């Protein structure tokens, strides 16, 4: 028992210590500190998830004397349930790969944008983000979740603005403001819950009176939409692509944007008490978001912006799965949880791959790139695997999660239409990504591509590891998401 507590505490303390150490160490030592801290955190994270399987773990760590919460409910604590296990896996394992990848990417040899200073600052914020994201996943109640939630927003601002160029600071500011407005909704919802139920527990929302409950849900949804870049708060994410690519891969594909959908998923799984009207709202907004993003796909020339829109679509997928859970389809809900993991691996792969292209060839513009496969065979393979994984080609990662969401759609009323819409999205994304892959990697090498080269080993290692994750994550995730629904689903 104590070991479990120790592990979970270490999961927070180790990256936090890494952040501080990286911040105060010399520029050359900062990456090393961050790599070791994140590696340790990844090992601890995996160990914690394994130890918490299948019963989960929860600890109450402290109260605030002046905050009169309901008996039995704590103010601070740590909990590791199946849903947060999924998050912890994404955060720690991909986090480590990202940090490793950053050590080369943020170096002077980066063709697109040589980075010569700011190492300590970068690793401080990155590891602080690591910590706060772990905090989000391990939070047992709304209050603590909110605190870490806002910390991730702050880190996102700092990391997007890393280069301190005008476009980057502007994008960072935009992201900060937009997600913070959502965060304000979270705060109000938090206060409403406390006023109404005298507790910050997730399940406390179920005890609220009808109108208040809906208000709280809507406010939390707004927070989640803003965090996950859903309509109408989707505009910050494509702009945030000014961030260094590892940041985009980590914050804006694998981890931070997942916090929003994680919150909604967490609300649904805590008592399954979300009203069905809310389910409809979630699903309709998710479908609208999908439509928006699919339309936007076709106009992107910047590979990273393309991937950003694809991320928005996949977050919408998760929300649709969650809304299916609201309608009573446990399997759709499990698909959503699995999609958090599967998409994290697949999209992380794609982002890191695009980063490697920018690093080696100096451009991320589809129109300038052609025939890269000859000089960057590893990236070609990785991109193909990532593209096939993210569009759901068996047996790669997103195939499984999408399939469960499809199946969940069929279980719900009117699900055939939903199924057809999702399938259409799948087909369009597939076509578009294949076209992009062909354009960028095949054909005769363009001028930019002729000078490209495979990146150094830390980046290659991260790429290969991500590719392996694309294959194996569903099989790791399946036993975990199975626990989400006791006795239901599969």
């Amino acid at each position, binding site marked *: 028992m104590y070991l479990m507590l120790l592990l979970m505490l270490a999961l927070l303390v180790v990256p936090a210590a890494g952040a501080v150490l990286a911040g105060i160490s010399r520029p050359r030592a900062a990456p090393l500190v961050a790599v070791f801290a994140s590696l340790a955190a990844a090992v601890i994270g995996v160990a914690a998830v394994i130890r918490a399987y299948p019963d989960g773990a929860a600890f109450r760590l402290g109260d605030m004397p002046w905050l009169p919460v309901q008996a039995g409910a704590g103010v601070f604590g740590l909990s590791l349930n199946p849903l947060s296990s999924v998050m912890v896996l994404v955060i720690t394992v991909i986090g480590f790969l990202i940090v490793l990848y950053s050590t080369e990417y943020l170096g002077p040899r980066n063709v697109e944008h040589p980075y010569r200073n700011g190492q300590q600052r970068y690793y401080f914020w990155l590891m602080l983000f690591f910590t706060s994201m772990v905090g989000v996943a391990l939070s047992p109640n709304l209050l603590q979740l909110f605190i870490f939630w806002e910390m991730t927003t702050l880190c996102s601002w700092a990391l997007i603005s890393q280069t301190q160029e005008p476009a980057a600071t502007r994008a960072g500011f935009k992201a900060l403001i937009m997600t913070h407005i959502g965060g304000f909704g979270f705060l109000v919802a938090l206060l409403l819950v406390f006023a109404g139920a005298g507790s910050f527990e997730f399940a406390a929302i179920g005890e609220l009176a009808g109108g208040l409950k809906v208000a709280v849900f809507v406010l939390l949804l707004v927070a989640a939409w803003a965090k996950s870049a859903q*309509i109408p708060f*989707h505009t910050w994410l494509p702009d945030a692509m000014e961030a260094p690519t590892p940041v985009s891969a980590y914050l804006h594909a694998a981890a931070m944007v997942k916090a929003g959908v994680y919150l909604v998923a967490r609300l649904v799984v805590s008592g399954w008490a979300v009203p069905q009207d809310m389910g409809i709202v979630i699903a309709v907004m998710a479908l609208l978001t999908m439509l928006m993003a699919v339309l936007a796909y076709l106009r992107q020339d910047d590979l990273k912006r393309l991937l950003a829109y694809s991320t928005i679509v996949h977050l919408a997928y998760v929300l649709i799965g969650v809304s299916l859970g609201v309608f009573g389809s446990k399997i759709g809900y499990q698909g959503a949880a699995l999609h958090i993991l599967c998409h994290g691996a697949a999209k992380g792969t794609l982002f890191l791959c695009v980063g490697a292209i920018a690093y080696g060839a100096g451009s991320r513009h589809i129109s300038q790139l052609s025939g890269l496969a000859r000089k960057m065979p590893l990236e070609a393979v990785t991109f193909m695997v990532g593209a096939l994984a993210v569009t759901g080609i068996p047996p790669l990662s997103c195939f499984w999660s999408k*399939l469960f969401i499809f199946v969940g759609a069929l279980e719900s009323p009117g699900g055939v239409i939903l*199924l057809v819409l999702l399938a259409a999205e799948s087909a369009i994304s597939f076509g578009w990504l294949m076209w992009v892959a*062909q354009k960028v990697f095949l054909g005769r090498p363009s001028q930019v591509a002729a000078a490209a080269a495979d990146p150094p080993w830390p980046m290659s290692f991260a790429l290969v590891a991500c590719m392996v994750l694309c294959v194996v994550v569903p099989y790791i995730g399946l036993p975990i998401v199975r626990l989400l629904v006791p006795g239901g689903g599969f």
Partner: protein
Amino acid sequence: MTPVQAVMHAVAVLAIGAAVTAIVSRSRTASAYLALLFVAVASGLALWAGGASLTGAESGSAPATVAVVSGIGASLTLAVDRFTAFFLLIIGVMAFLSTLYSTSYMRIYQREHAARYYPMLLLFFAGVIGVVSVRDWFFFFVFWEFMTICSYFLVIFDKEDPTILRAGFKYIVVTHVAAIFMLIAALVLWHTSEPHSFSFASSAQAMGALGRSSPIVLHVLLALWLIGFATKAGILPFGDWLPDAYPAAPTGATAAFAGTMTKLGIYGLLRVFVDLLPASEFSVVWGLVIAALGTGSIFVGTITALSQDDAKRLMSFHVIGQMGYMFLGIGMGIYFLPTQPTLALVGILAGTFHLLNHVCYKSLLFCTAGSLRLRAGTQALHEMGGLARVLPLTAVMAAIGSLSIAGVPPFNGFASKWLIYQLSVIGGIGFPLLLLFGLVAFFISLVTLASFLKYLGAAFFGQPSDHVAALQGKRNDVPGGMQAPQVVLGLACVAFGLFPMLPLTAVYRAITPLTTALSGTTLAGTLGTSVLGLTFTPDGVAAGVWYPLASAIALAICVAISYGIARMAQAPSRVVPVWYCGVDLPQRLGHFHPHGMYEPFRRAFERVYVKIGTPKTAYPTTLVKIFDVDTWLYGPLVKAGGRVAERFSRSHVGIPQWYLVWQVVGMVLVLVVLFSVMR
């Protein structure tokens, strides 16, 4: 070892082989021979599994469940029934032959890395074997997609040619969409079955139940499946990708596609419409649809093939036409399934037999086209000519293949087509539309002959073109690795043509366990017992006979007689230069180009093949504008906020008098509020 285990081992061997060939891919030779070795072992296993099951007394070995995805009712269940066994035999042979062919052929690609060919080819075969062995829609889909992706990478092997990339893109998108159709159909059936399951057995039950409760849903599902399979089989209008993608792939892979993957469209068709769908009025409707689609493909595909100049593209259009014959035969068979089992048997037999024949001659023809490419360096017919002198054996094999595909007796193509014609005539008595189908098929047979005479004439006979003349007419046939597959397939064409009863027996054993509707029929009762020929006896009355050996002997005698007459008459023959109406033309200009052949045909049927371009839709700019919240909402809001702040800041001017005024105003406000609250 049971057949199922053999199949599993074959897949495992291919997977290991893919890894090994990828590792050693720096050496092309090592990669090639190792690939051949692994494929040989896997082929042996597949052949053993197929042979044992097809000849076994029972209708197939028991299914074995390898893995289960609990909760969604999917299980990796493998089984080798006789129908699967039949396909395993084809796959076993074709996998080995096409790999053998590739080992020599791939030397024409000097720039491309071997790692992109052999591992993919091996994985492709693994996928194909998986597709025919699973008994569960979920894993059927998994293998199907796997096979499609592998074949896509084979198609785009020559990755710097923009035409090839376009072809590959079209291929992957079209077939992926078709696969999604199939997935939706499978998911709906999964949802209908109780308890939810993807297994073939429960989908059969679910189909039966759906047919009674909601026929429209079942019709939609069958349509989705038909589109899925027709797309893979290259049936028009869904198979538009085929004439682009087949010529793009390296020829070894093309032969493998023609021998295995395209045929899986037929496999799926028979699985769904004969095995799973209970014989009912649905069979009648969809049998007719299948036959009509087939006839359309026969006509359009073959007519379009006539005017092609690229050898492989010409053959690819013939794939469409020949797949049409199979659809026609099988469609008629399905049409008769609930009412006249004997005719149904003949239809399905004919279609499946035609499939077998097509595997032989089409793969052979693709191989010959590849041989021409290796020696003449081109696939364009107008750059060839007189190559028979350079490639004598290939020329003979190409002739055998051409005559077979054109349905010239006594080659194998005729035997299966003969059955299709017979059925359309007999079936046409009751339903004249079938007669029309048969007439189209009959007419197109001649078009096929014309088209292949063009191929033979342009490539092998006539004057050598300048291009070929550079080869100096020295006998220089392709290496043994490419010869052997051609010879084996050519011999098969002749053997199946002379003794059609032997392959038909295998086909009969393969298809009868599929449905109980055929259980009352016997092969002997329908096509006679003689090994030398076929006696078509619907309803106990002999309606037609075909004894190929007898015809062959008669033909040989006729040839001998005419030759004898010519010898006896001692007709003189003289060799003169070609006369160009007195003008002294260089041979290059006087050459009759294959472009020019069948020009009237081309003009008459120009519009028969409608090229399906990418649909052009207007980009919904309004919608995009609506979604661009920054421009119409956030931007103005921020600006407005800025303006408000600006105005407010004007109050802050730094003169003490003004602050005094604000304080007084503020105090008054506070007092008003206080008084109103306290009152």
